């Protein structure tokens, strides 16, 4: 599967077109003929120029359609053609690293909000402060710029906010007469029932131990009142050994030790889980609603959107667990030779009209407050809007990505506990020291 994916990506990059996970090739946004005719219209300032744009994730049909329309609009306004490339989420850091080292980067890139501090510290993004105080963008609440503002400069504009909820197989729940869980115990019972009926190799509730594992672990730890680290003065102090964090951590490792998720898949990330979900091997997992089109593609149409639904992750302590405050931003890549045009693109993409549609088509929450307020009545988006109210985030530090993804500090701690190599206390004490070392370096 990995090979197919890699081959697909390589081919996609070589051709400069977008290819999606399911092997279906999508056309690049602007057709060649349109590019030729554009310069003839004398008006646009940037006629004949090309802008490279990196979108993250899979090019599922709604996302592709959105990009096609956005890029066509951009061409109409500025005359410039957009070369669009899709980068799968698990490869984002590697692609950014290669682009920053080799100079073959995009002009504009989508970026995860928690990745912004890291890439600013690597000097890979250009400041775009002026852009955010005028026009539509001035309406985006300032508290959404927390991770994006570093030393008084803004490096990225929030494009859509994303929180996580539990995606489940509605058709299985109906078939097995399972009620939508309201408490953590009901989630466990539902997962057990699914495994009894659908086979032992099905993950009732999938454990995520890959690059984005902290979305799941974080929700469980936050719901107990725990946190990763707090800043005291100019130093980060790790809080992993707190009983509250430990309680969440034990719920997390308990997914595997109690058999709800297979012991052989301790390093799977959301993309891996999604593939198994599409193949009837997962009952529930924590994710965002943008996974649905990918599941339809991966399952070759066998698992359809109406067989799937979301519910907010219940906390073990009662109520809903706080979700990860995620979001996708859009930023100007530092080495761009086309900074002015790149800013124009961001201005258009994050304008109210296009940002709202980005959120709607991508299953994200809109960053414009009035649009968000109107979502509370939407049955699909309501679980996310509810989670969004309680959203929390990871330590806002450039080194967080290293601790959370590259060094996988807590994923390794969880594995040593699951393998019986260390107790939760020992593993968390080691992890705490490592987390402090990384955050304070």
């Amino acid at each position, binding site marked *: 599967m990995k090979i197919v994916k890699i081959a697909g990506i390589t081919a996609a990059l070589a051709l400069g077109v977008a290819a999606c996970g399911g092997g279906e090739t999508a056309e690049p946004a602007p057709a060649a003929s349109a590019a030729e005719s554009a310069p003839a219209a004398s008006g646009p300032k940037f006629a004949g120029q090309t802008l490279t744009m990196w979108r993250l994730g899979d090019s599922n049909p709604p996302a592709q359609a959105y990009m096609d329309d956005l890029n066509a609009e951009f061409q109409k306004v500025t005359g410039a053609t957009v070369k669009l490339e899709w980068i799968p989420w698990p490869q984002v850091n590697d692609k950014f690293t290669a682009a920053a080292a080799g100079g073959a980067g995009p002009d504009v890139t989508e970026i995860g909000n928690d990745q912004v501090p890291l890439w600013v510290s690597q000097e890979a993004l250009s400041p775009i402060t002026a852009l955010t105080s005028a026009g539509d963008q001035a309406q985006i609440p300032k508290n959404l710029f927390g991770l994006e503002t570093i030393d008084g400069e803004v490096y990225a504009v929030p494009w859509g906010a994303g929180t996580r909820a539990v995606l489940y197989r509605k058709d299985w729940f109906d078939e097995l007469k399972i009620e939508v869980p309201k408490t953590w115990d009901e989630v466990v019972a539902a997962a057990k029932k699914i495994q009894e009926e659908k086979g032992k190799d099905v993950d009732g509730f999938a454990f995520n131990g890959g690059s984005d594992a902290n979305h799941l672990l974080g929700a469980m730890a936050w719901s107990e009142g725990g946190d990763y680290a707090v800043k005291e003065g100019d130093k980060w102090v790790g809080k992993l050994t707190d009983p509250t964090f430990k309680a969440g951590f034990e719920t997390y490792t308990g997914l595997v030790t109690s058999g709800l998720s297979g012991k052989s898949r301790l390093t799977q990330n959301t993309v891996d889980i999604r593939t198994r979900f599409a193949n009837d091997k997962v009952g529930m997992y924590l994710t965002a609603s943008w996974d649905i089109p990918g599941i339809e593609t991966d399952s070759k149409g066998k698992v359809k959107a109406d067989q799937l639904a979301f519910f907010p992750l219940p906390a073990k302590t009662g109520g809903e667990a706080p979700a990860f405050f995620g979001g996708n931003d859009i930023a100007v890549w530092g080495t761009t030779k086309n900074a002015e045009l790149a800013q124009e693109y961001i201005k258009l993409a994050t304008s109210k009209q296009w940002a709202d549609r980005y959120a709607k088509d991508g299953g994200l929450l809109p960053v414009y407050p009035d649009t968000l307020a109107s979502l509370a009545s939407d049955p699909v988006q309501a679980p996310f809007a509810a989670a969004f109210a309680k959203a929390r985030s990871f330590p806002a530090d450039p080194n967080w990505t290293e601790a959370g993804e*590259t060094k996988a500090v807590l994923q390794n701690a969880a594995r040593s506990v699951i393998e019986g190599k260390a107790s939760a206390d020992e593993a968390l004490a080691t992890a705490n020291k490592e987390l402090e070392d990384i955050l304070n370096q």
Partner: protein
Amino acid sequence: MTDTSIARRSHRPPKKASGLNPKYIPYALLIPGIAVIAALLLYPMFQVFVISFQKVGLPQIRDVNPKPAEWLGWENYTKVFENDIFWSSLRNTIGFAVITVTLTLVVGTAVGVLLNQLSKRMSTFVIVGIMAAWAVPPVAQGVIWRWLFDAEAGIINWALNLLPDFLSTALFGRADWSGEPWTNEAVSIYVILIVMVLWSSFPFVAVSVLAGLKGIPTELYEAARVDGSSPWRTFWKITFPLLKPVFAVLTILSIIWDFKVFSQLYTLMNGPTVREAFNLSVFSFAEAFKAPPKMGSGAAIAVILTIILLIVTAFYVRQMVKSEEVQ
């Protein structure tokens, strides 16, 4: 053609005088090779050495106005030595090399001797078979073996489940192998890695030994047989001493190959995931190229690995030269 004619011909002076003093011709011929090695190997090695004393990240290596690298002295090295992962990587690297080099040479030699006993047709058949394993690219090997040991769909767990329960319990202390994960922890990862590298590297040893064996005059074996020597004794008294130079080269090559094994381990673990199972190459890669890249400490690890390898090889070459002198 007799020996004398060869001697006479080679002593004949060249008809046309070359512009270059014959004494320098070998050096002139070496220049292109040395230039290529210097550009592709010596210069990068020198750079790695320099970088290992510097703080080098993305801002330092990018194309557009790169920042000057900061000189850190020994800091990269002291940090590496304080890191637990370095010590587990070092242990994994050395342990793996010792076990795998030994197994490769023993199995390779045994197969080489066997090939020498086989009929021509059969030996060709076996050679083609084992060379196919040798020819599999390292990344493909990693993927193939990862699939074989897959917890749910892998053939290994399936085969272990086919064993009668009493036998499986007697051998491994368990009867049920369904869903047994192999790539979660260092020990089982290295079991797979050793088998994989052995599988892919013994054919080269076997074929080299076979080539050596073909060069030993059959009279020696006939004499041994007349004297009533056992096959074991024949091997140690005739084959082994005569093949010593072959073994020396094969050992050094195997040590070098097994010390720096990377692709197979990387694909087997599906990237640098299980940190306790890192070896020095994977550790160096993870430090140097995973975001945020720390090329300085990655380079420091690479320098340490190179030095260890140089010491081991130098020691071995010295032993070899010594024993040649004794003879």
